[in-house]
């Protein structure tokens, strides 16, 4: 038996230690590159006007997705529009159904992937911002708006804040505090419409889909309002998913949603979800919102938060 000289033993020990360190480093670094195969998918939802009705609608969809994907899909309501990005992190969400402005923020800040958009019962997957007044008011132009009261929806709403703000700026309004007697946030698109209908605000902003939905439910509303301006169309709601989720799972999720209008079970769930089908989404749909935010707010941010 031959003993290795001390120098050679030290060399082998050194090499072995280096190898251990390398393996450890590789092992700890691996999750950064590897795709998550979660045991369940936790999907966030932004609150709408009727949160109970909304949860019920999304529950049908979550149950269907759980069946189709073989993985539990759970839902959670994310408190407010503007807190979505923060909630995405704290709630450890894998995805969320986001309205256009928060989706734009999620894509930019959290590198979320926009997967699909639901097409509503009126055949629209996109919505646009409206600025409207009561028809019997004397307001028909920017000048008529001076000194009135205006209702926005939420600082993190494209249709209910970013668009009207951008519109007002384009028409020379530098300071809404000075231009209007009062402005306030209604918290929902429907509330903004009701505020103008009641006379609690002279001018309102809201998304077209909510506006038309209210008119469909109560046709007496339509003739009472006048739309003064409208924004370009943007995706109303987008399912955005973390890119860390395994590619295979993301593709299966998109596939199930995009094809569910072709199966009887899927059609039934779509009916309960109050949508006709899902269509594919793309990052390009959100470019216009980022541009509008840059112009109106200086950056893509939630104003006032």
């Amino acid at each position, binding site marked *: 038996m031959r003993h290795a000289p001390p120098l050679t033993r030290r060399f082998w020990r050194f090499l072995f230690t280096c190898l251990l360190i390398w393996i450890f480093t590789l092992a700890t670094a691996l999750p950064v590159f590897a795709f998550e195969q979660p045991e369940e998918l936790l999907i966030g939802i932004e609150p709408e*006007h*009727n949160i109970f009705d909304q949860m019920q609608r999304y529950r049908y969809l979550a149950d269907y997705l759980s069946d189709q994907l073989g993985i539990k899909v759970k839902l959670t309501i994310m408190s407010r529009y503007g807190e979505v990005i923060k909630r995405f992190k704290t709630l450890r969400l894998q995805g969320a159904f986001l309205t256009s402005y928060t989706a734009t923020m999620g894509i930019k800040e959290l590198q979320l992937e926009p997967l699909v958009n639901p097409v509503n019962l009126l055949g629209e997957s996109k919505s646009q911002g409206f600025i409207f007044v*009561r028809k*019997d*008011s004397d307001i028909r132009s920017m000048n008529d708006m001076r000194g009135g*009261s205006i209702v926005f929806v939420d600082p993190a709403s494209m249709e209910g804040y970013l668009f009207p703000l951008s519109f007002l700026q384009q028409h020379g309004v530098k300071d809404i505090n000075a231009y209007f007697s009062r402005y306030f946030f209604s*918290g*929902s698109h*429907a*509330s903004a419409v*009701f*505020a103008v*209908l*009641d*006379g*609690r605000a*002279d001018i309102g902003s809201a998304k077209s889909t909510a506006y038309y939905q209210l008119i469909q439910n*109560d046709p*007496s*509303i339509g003739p*009472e309002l006048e739309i003064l301006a409208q924004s370009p169309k943007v995706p109303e709601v987008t399912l955005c998913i973390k890119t860390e989720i395994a590619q295979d799972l993301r593709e299966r999720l998109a596939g199930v949603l995009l094809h569910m209008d072709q199966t009887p079970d899927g059609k039934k769930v779509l009916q309960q979800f109050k949508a006709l089908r899902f269509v594919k989404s793309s990052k390009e749909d959100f470019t216009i919102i980022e541009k509008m935010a840059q112009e109106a707010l200086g950056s893509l941010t939630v104003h006032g938060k």
Partner: protein
Amino acid sequence: MTGDIPYYGAIHEAFVNEINKRSAGEEKIEIVLQRPFPNSISWSNAARKLIAFDVDLIVTYGSPAALAVIHEKSSIPLVYAGFYEPEEVAINSKYATGCGFKVPLSSILRYFKRVKDVNSLGVVFSSIEEDSVRQFDTMKRLTEQQGIKIAKMDIQAQSDLDKLKTQQSDVVFITGSSLAHLWLDDLVTILEKQQVPVADIFPDENEAGVLMTLFQPSDTQGEMAAEMAWQILTGTRPADLATQTFRDTELVFNLIEAKRLGINFPIQLLIEATRVIE
């Protein structure tokens, strides 16, 4: 005043405060207040009295009082306030100007429908009050469009309140009638016994008996009337002052009343309220 009711009283209070502010340091303005019983003869008598006093300016609250003054064809300047939709009435006098208000009555109907199935609407109005009649007509047009039956509840005397005891409407709307508001407590007591939800376009001072109110805050009209009055007293001609209609409103839900009626206000409806009485 068209009638001695809290809404006009509040407009008057705001008017007095504002005019006193504007005239501070000047000769004190003497105010003669007439509170006629709401009927044509009393309005006419009140108008004639003020004209006989040879006052510098007449201020009225409510359209019947304003129209009574205009009818006298006096050259004394008139500033009206609390006038419902003044642009809807042909005011043919170069000596008259003022401000008024509009409440979207369609909203009242809409909110009723969100808390209860509405197949019939009772409207409390007074056929001798011009503004109250116009409000009834508007409600009539709206209910016809929506296939809802309307029941007239014309109040000209206190004894007319008895008619309400046999009313069968699902909900009742009280127009801005001075007579109805003069006897509001009696009126809501009768309707309370019938478990009927009531809405009003004047604030419910006692906060009892009326389920919802959608009204124009009185102080802005009082202040505007004072500004117009001050300008006229300092030389501006009434014809040079444009009339103004205030359309801002406040919506108040009375949850105590809702509970009594067994009505469960949906949360998405409650958030619309400017104020909730609990």
